[in-house]
């Protein structure tokens, strides 16, 4: 299966105010094939949002390439604009994502107008709103964001993205700011879009339950690298990497003894030497043989392949 969207040895580094260099993404390979939903999970500072933005072309990588249908992304404004019709973004906060002065119609039609899409604009907007679950669409044309609920606003954002008929949707925490009872509907919508339109999706989230709900594959990120990747059934029920195991164990209802990691979520400006997880690794702390321990502390792991094989970046486990 050829990848629709692929990240190839991507790194993104930037300089913070203090002058130190932050390695937001420190080498990532990821393949997204048509019609699959990948969940990108991790905690704050792991680089998942930066990865999402880089895949969309909103952030320029320091090195490595993003390839769409095998070709690297254009760097020119015109070229990137073409790409925008294929890959669209759904942001976390639906309230902030809509201009409070624009009506729902204008918000959904914005993309169509930017790209001067031929056809009857009204029909296209109606179709997009309808696909996103806002029915009857005409009722929503004249409404402004503050007249809608959180779930409805998120549907408008999704409709705006759908209007351009993308093949990939990148959603950054699409349900984090929504009420619990409304989450299910939005997630079901994403699944339906996958089934009806063959839409691929990369869902960035810190919520592993969400991955279980809708994703085919899951990639776990830590400090700028993917540390484990594979099918959801496998990674979430039989996790290999100590970090994934710890994350799953602290979920209430996990049925495992909780492994609560000490220390704070790590800082991309100081990435530890060797395996980047080793200072907090419960496996290392509980004892591995000397040789493995030495490698954990001093030898960095290779960047995992992002394709359909399962992979773990750990000296002690498989790898």
């Amino acid at each position, binding site marked *: 299966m050829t990848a629709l969207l692929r990240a190839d040895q991507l790194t993104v580094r930037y300089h913070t105010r203090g002058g130190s260099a932050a390695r937001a993404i420190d080498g990532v390979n990821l393949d997204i094939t048509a019609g699959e939903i990948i969940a990108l999970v991790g905690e704050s500072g792991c680089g998942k949002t930066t990865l999402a933005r880089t895949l969309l072309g909103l952030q320029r990588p320091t090195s490595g390439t993003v390839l769409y249908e095998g070709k690297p992304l254009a760097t020119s404004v015109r070229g990137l604009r073409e790409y925008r019709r294929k890959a669209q973004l759904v942001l976390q906060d639906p309230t902030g994502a809509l201009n409070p002065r624009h009506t729902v119609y204008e918000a959904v039609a914005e993309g169509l107008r930017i790209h001067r899409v031929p056809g009857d604009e009204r029909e296209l907007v109606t179709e997009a709103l309808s696909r996103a679950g806002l029915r009857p669409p005409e009722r929503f044309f004249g409404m402004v964001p503050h007249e809608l609920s959180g779930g409805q606003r998120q549907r408008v954002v999704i409709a705006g993205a759908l209007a351009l008929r993308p093949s990939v949707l990148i959603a950054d925490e699409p349900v984090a700011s929504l009420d619990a009872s409304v989450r299910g509907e939005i997630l079901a919508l994403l699944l339906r879009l996958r089934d009806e339109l063959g839409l691929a999706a990369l869902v960035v989230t810190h919520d592993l339950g969400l991955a279980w709900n809708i994703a085919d594959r899951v990639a776990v990120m830590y400090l700028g690298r993917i540390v484990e990747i594979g099918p959801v059934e496998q990674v979430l029920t039989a996790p290999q990497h100590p970090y994934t195991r710890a994350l799953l164990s602290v979920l209430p209802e996990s049925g495992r003894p909780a492994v*609560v990691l000490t220390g704070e979520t790590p800082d991309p400006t100081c990435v530890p030497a060797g395996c980047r997880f080793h200072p907090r690794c419960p496996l290392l702390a509980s004892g591995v043989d000397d040789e493995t321990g030495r490698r954990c502390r001093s030898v960095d792991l290779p960047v995992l392949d992002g394709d359909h094989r399962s992979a773990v970046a750990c000296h002690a486990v498989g790898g």
Partner: protein
Amino acid sequence: MGEPLLELRDMTVTYHTGRGPVPAVRGVDLVVDTGQTVGLAGESGCGKSTVALAVLRLLPTTARLGGKVLLNGEDVVAMKWGRLRAVRWASASVVFQGAMHALNPVRPVGEQLAEPILLHGGAGANTVSSRVGDLLEQVGLPARRARAYPHELSGGQRQRVMIAMALACDPQLIIADEPTTALDVMVQAQVLDLVSRLVSELGIGLMMISHDLSVLASTCQRLAVMYAGRIIEQGPARQVLQAPAHPYTKALSAAFPTIGDPESRLAPRGLPGDPPDPSALPPGCPFHPRCPSAFADCVDTDVALRPVDTGRSAACLLEVRP
């Protein structure tokens, strides 16, 4: 045991806005005993944060508080201002929602921790600073961090400071409003661990508010679920989570699936519509427009809490057996 630490009897809160009275809380009965942990679950607009603020009469002036709020037997609603000030923080304290942003950015955290101590007649500077150091150690932060400014601390650390602040005057009851909502999974686990440890070590009562049922079930002994200003189900936390009686509770617990459960794999479940607007509640059972099991009577019958099992009650017309 004696009387309960906190007892809410038919508590009502109505906001008087420009558009007319809005009933945010419509008759809540809740009991928290000393050393007991009670969870209050619900979504936006259900009134749970209002309940939290009402206990210490921290509501805005447009709010009218009705019913009885008994803190150690004393009615907070009827308290005089002086007595209320003495009770605030010393008998019960609150860890507010968005607490991480509630810290003053231009003062070191140690000073902010000292503030309630000094307000309640703490002794000299030495006693206060050692008390501040003790509080920080209790929440897992080194005492020297008292000199740090809020922006120098991480989200999890700030939340710990807020918890330390809530403990400052040795309260008997802590009300934590969404204490872990904005935090990462691991930090959330750390904070919940801390809260559980403190509650059992110090023997204080805890009322925790959240929209995440599983978080509440893992930390609290009893669980009450709110919808449209009323409690629609309550009982022992484990039981409510695993065998919910009310359709809303079922939907709420299904929203956060258990990993490994094949039923929720590729099957996200949610409710149609949105949580109701307190100023425009539907007639009859407020949940009926969204309820998958609603039938004819639900539209016009206002349902009260009815017992469904020992120690459990639910406000639903269905013959529910958990």
